[in-house]
């Protein structure tokens, strides 16, 4: 398995102002930016927001290489989106859509790259506590988010390994030879991860028959 890494889910230790900023503020920033992009229709405004995100990235001293890797990951997909939207809606709208998506990716990475996963879990558990009333388990919700972040580099690594295997067999143009193994490997990964979580008792429901030995609420 290739260990190709996509930096969205990796925490980078540091002392920048973004590292020190409260999780709630960072989360609110990402949320507002995500919602705000729905109202950004001018390509100039979208590119300006993306530039601002890049400046914030630089101010957190997260490294130019990491930024390039972050932007390069979804580039093939976003290039296809750009071409399609250019054809459908024209160049201004197409550039605006792609810049908005990139701005959201960089914003989300600013949150995950400057926040340790345990702090992120604690934050999600605290924020989701009111949802307990409607049957949502905050611990499980936090775990789902953490596992999703952890899965991104694995799935990208799987995609690279399958692409290499298809190339080695001269099947690089066969979409089935590339899609099916990724799908199967992803399902197998999900099963193994589920087994590992179950074996460690993470995400277990607390019932009278299955009492917890928790000594902490968080």
């Amino acid at each position, binding site marked *: 398995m290739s260990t190709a890494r996509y930096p969205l889910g990796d925490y980078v230790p540091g002392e920048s102002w973004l590292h020190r900023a409260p999780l709630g503020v960072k989360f609110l920033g990402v949320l507002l930016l995500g919602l705000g992009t729905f109202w950004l229709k001018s390509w100039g405004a979208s590119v300006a927001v993306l530039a601002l995100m890049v400046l914030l990235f630089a101010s957190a001293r997260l490294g130019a290489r990491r930024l390039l890797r972050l932007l390069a990951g979804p580039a093939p997909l976003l290039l296809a989106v750009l071409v399609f939207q250019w054809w459908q809606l024209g160049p201004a709208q197409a550039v605006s859509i792609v810049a908005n998506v990139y701005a959201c990716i960089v914003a989300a990475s600013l949150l995950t790259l400057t926040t340790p996963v345990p702090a992120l879990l604690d934050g999600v558990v605290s924020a989701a506590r009111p949802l307990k009333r409607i049957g949502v388990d905050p611990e499980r919700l936090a775990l789902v988010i953490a596992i999703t972040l*952890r899965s991104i580099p694995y799935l990208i690594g799987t995609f690279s390994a399958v692409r290499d295997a298809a190339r080695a067999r001269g099947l690089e143009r066969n979409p089935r030879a590339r899609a099916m193994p990724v799908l199967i490997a992803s399902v197998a990964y999900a099963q193994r991860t589920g087994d590992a979580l179950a074996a460690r008792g993470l995400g277990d429901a607390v019932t009278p028959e299955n009492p917890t030995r928790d000594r*902490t609420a968080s």
Partner: protein
Amino acid sequence: MSALELRDVVVRIPSDDERPARTILEVPSLRLDEPRIGVLGANGSGKSTLLRLLNGLQEPSSGTVTVHGRDTRREGRAVRAEVGFVFTDPLSQLVMPTGREDLELSLRRTVPRKERRTRAEEILRRFGLLHLADQSVYELSGGERQLMALASVLAVEPRVLVLDEPSTLLDLRNRELLRRTLSGLPQQIVLATHDLELVLDMERVLVVEDARVVFDGGAEAAVAHYRRLCLAERA
């Protein structure tokens, strides 16, 4: 009370479009009290199913499995707190981006938030892994990953440690490291392996063949029995 006990256990896989129903493990009666127990068997013999029963990952189709008197079906959560499980592939087991974060995840249910980091560091230091605490799990060597997975499981101080082929992906040096680490642990260990050297460290060894325990005794006799089984198959 026996540490681990299986009574009239049968594990069946129901029929589907391609295959009829079949039994993948049948154990009339088994008590496991020794501190070091090995399980030998060919791929598909049922040894992993036997191990998964001990942690409640696999429920028996009929019969009961108890761990220190707790039924794995009715008290699964409590059983999992007592029985740590180490998988063959540590990358599946380590669910957080770094070892430190994974250990902190293990400690979430038992250690207050403010103490988790310190406790995680203590455990990493004990295993000689503190210098790798913040390294991505993808960047660790096979042996380091397996030890990290072991540390994550031991963080919650289980009474029993179950390991499913933990040395399969390791080179000789890392296998020796794992072997030394296991020998120093206070937990009861139940370990399935193809590594005949590792199994010789065990006090009692079961050989599983065709969904049944076909040998139960000392390590050397078990290895000899297993060799005979394999060679008889080839002949």
